[in-house]
């Protein structure tokens, strides 16, 4: 063989591509010469379908974008629609939204941690993370009535109030989770093999991050301290105390540490919300559902939110009819994933799985 470079296709079905990513990799022995991701295997026309129904109907497609953190997606849509229509939301509903979103962020990060462990060849962390996640899902199930896709946030509030039983579940969960965090971190973080495999792997410098438009934990792991919850607070994020964990290394291990710290911060936010949540209405009675369907609006709206993967927002354009004219989804994973060619060049096959799973891509959101 004159040409030493072999072309290998990872995916669209491969155990460590988190769904349907396909990466065309050119390999020189074990070393990656060039990696070219191919996406679109889960393109479900969310934008087109949301432009075909009314404003409340778009929710079902937005819900299924990032299916491991559906409430975060709903929040982005709901805020954009409310901003466009000028809907007032009761205070209690906003606090509840904040609490639910942070709970869902925990669930999303736990899935990431479990599958990341699986990609590094560890079976057991997956089960521990899913065990912890089930506890959160039980709370979400109690509040929303669903396990994965909730459809819980309504335009003008939330669909149902949080029951006292659910509050009690959340309270015990926050207390337990702080203790559990130590264990969750140690599943991977104390493993010498894990640390040696992830340090200096899949590096992204701050310039790369800005150039690719990478946001979220990946951006913060590369030394750029930016979080929409702090920079442009939506809901009541300016009324709670939390830190933005930041690392400067920009490798897979830094992303691991950032996400772990973010989980701690989310738990503390939930705890603070529990203390501050007021009594009152949870739904704006003025905007009942039949009325919303008929509500006509015009103008543009773009409300950025911080989803577990990065900056998520929806650019809504109304044309005066009851159907949104343009629903453009800014999906964080799409931009994060586009940095793969830079992130993988010169590393080994084993680093491919580590680096790809450190992006935490969810293909409902990448391909939309």
């Amino acid at each position: 063989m004159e040409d030493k470079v072999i072309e290998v296709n990872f995916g669209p079905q491969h155990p460590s591509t988190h769904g349907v990513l396909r990466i065309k990799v050119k390999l020189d022995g074990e070393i990656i010469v060039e990696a070219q991701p191919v996406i679109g295997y889960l393109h479900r026309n969310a934008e087109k379908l949301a432009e075909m129904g009314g404003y409340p109907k778009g929710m079902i497609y937005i819900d299924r974008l990032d299916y491991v953190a559906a409430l975060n997606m709903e929040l982005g849509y709901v805020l954009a629609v409310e901003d466009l229509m000028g809907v007032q939301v009761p205070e209690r509903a906003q606090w509840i939204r904040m609490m639910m979103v942070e709970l869902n962020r925990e669930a999303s990060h736990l899935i990431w941690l479990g599958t990341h462990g699986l990609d590094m060849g560890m079976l057991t962390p997956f089960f521990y993370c899913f065990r912890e996640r089930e506890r959160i899902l039980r709370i979400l199930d109690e509040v929303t009535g669903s396990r994965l896709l909730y459809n819980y946030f309504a335009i003008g509030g939330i669909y149902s109030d949080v029951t006292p039983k659910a509050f009690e579940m959340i309270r015990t969960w926050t207390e337990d989770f702080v203790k559990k965090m130590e264990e969750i971190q140690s599943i991977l973080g104390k493993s010498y093999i894990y640390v040696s495999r992830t340090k200096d792997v899949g590096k992204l410098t701050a310039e790369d991050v800005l150039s690719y438009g990478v946001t979220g934990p990946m951006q913060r792991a590369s030394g750029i301290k930016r979080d929409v919850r702090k920079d442009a607070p939506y809901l009541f994020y300016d009324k709670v105390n939390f830190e933005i964990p930041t690392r400067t290394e920009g490798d897979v291990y830094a992303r691991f540490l950032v996400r772990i710290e973010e989980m701690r911060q989310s738990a503390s936010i939930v705890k603070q919300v529990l203390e501050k949540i007021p009594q009152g209405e949870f739904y704006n009675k003025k905007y009942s559902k039949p009325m919303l369907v008929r509500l006509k609006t015009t103008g543009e709206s773009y409300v950025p939110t911080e989803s577990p993967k990065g900056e998520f927002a929806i650019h809504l354009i109304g044309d005066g009819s009851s159907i949104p004219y343009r629903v453009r989804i800014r999906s964080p994973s799409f931009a994060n994933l586009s940095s793969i060619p830079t992130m993988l060049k010169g590393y080994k096959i084993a680093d491919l799985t580590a680096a790809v799973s450190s992006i935490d891509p969810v293909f409902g959101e990448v391909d939309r």
Partner: protein
Amino acid sequence: MSDNILVTTLDEALKWGTGKSLWPFTFGLACCAIEMMSAMGSDYDWARFGSDVFRDSPRQSDLMIVSGTVTKKMAPRIRRLYDQMAFPKFVISMGACASAGGPYVRGYSVVDGVDQVVPVDVYVYGCPPRPEALIQALKMLQDRIVAGKVKH
């Protein structure tokens, strides 16, 4: 006569073996894949039913769980993966999207039902189905294989 009894018993045993040892294919498409993983997880643990060996290679797996929306771009690949599996092979269509297109049925790039691509043995309703529903589907498939009602 005794030959027949022997053959029948052997046949029963083979059916029993196939039914009780369905190794699923690590194959996730969309939202339902997360619930499929939950069904694997500690709380639901479908390893109890003999499906604990998740195989990454289609050659070694018996059960394909189509968990999520089948897009037009992915459908030929699913067919190829199905062709790569060795007989006897079974398919569970999990969730509304895989069964009939689900909420995306009006879309331009979604196949409305994976049964246009591969033959399906059990459909599971729900969007997404709860892990209990998937486990019930697995049990149903097992019972049908052991009773000899699945033909391949």
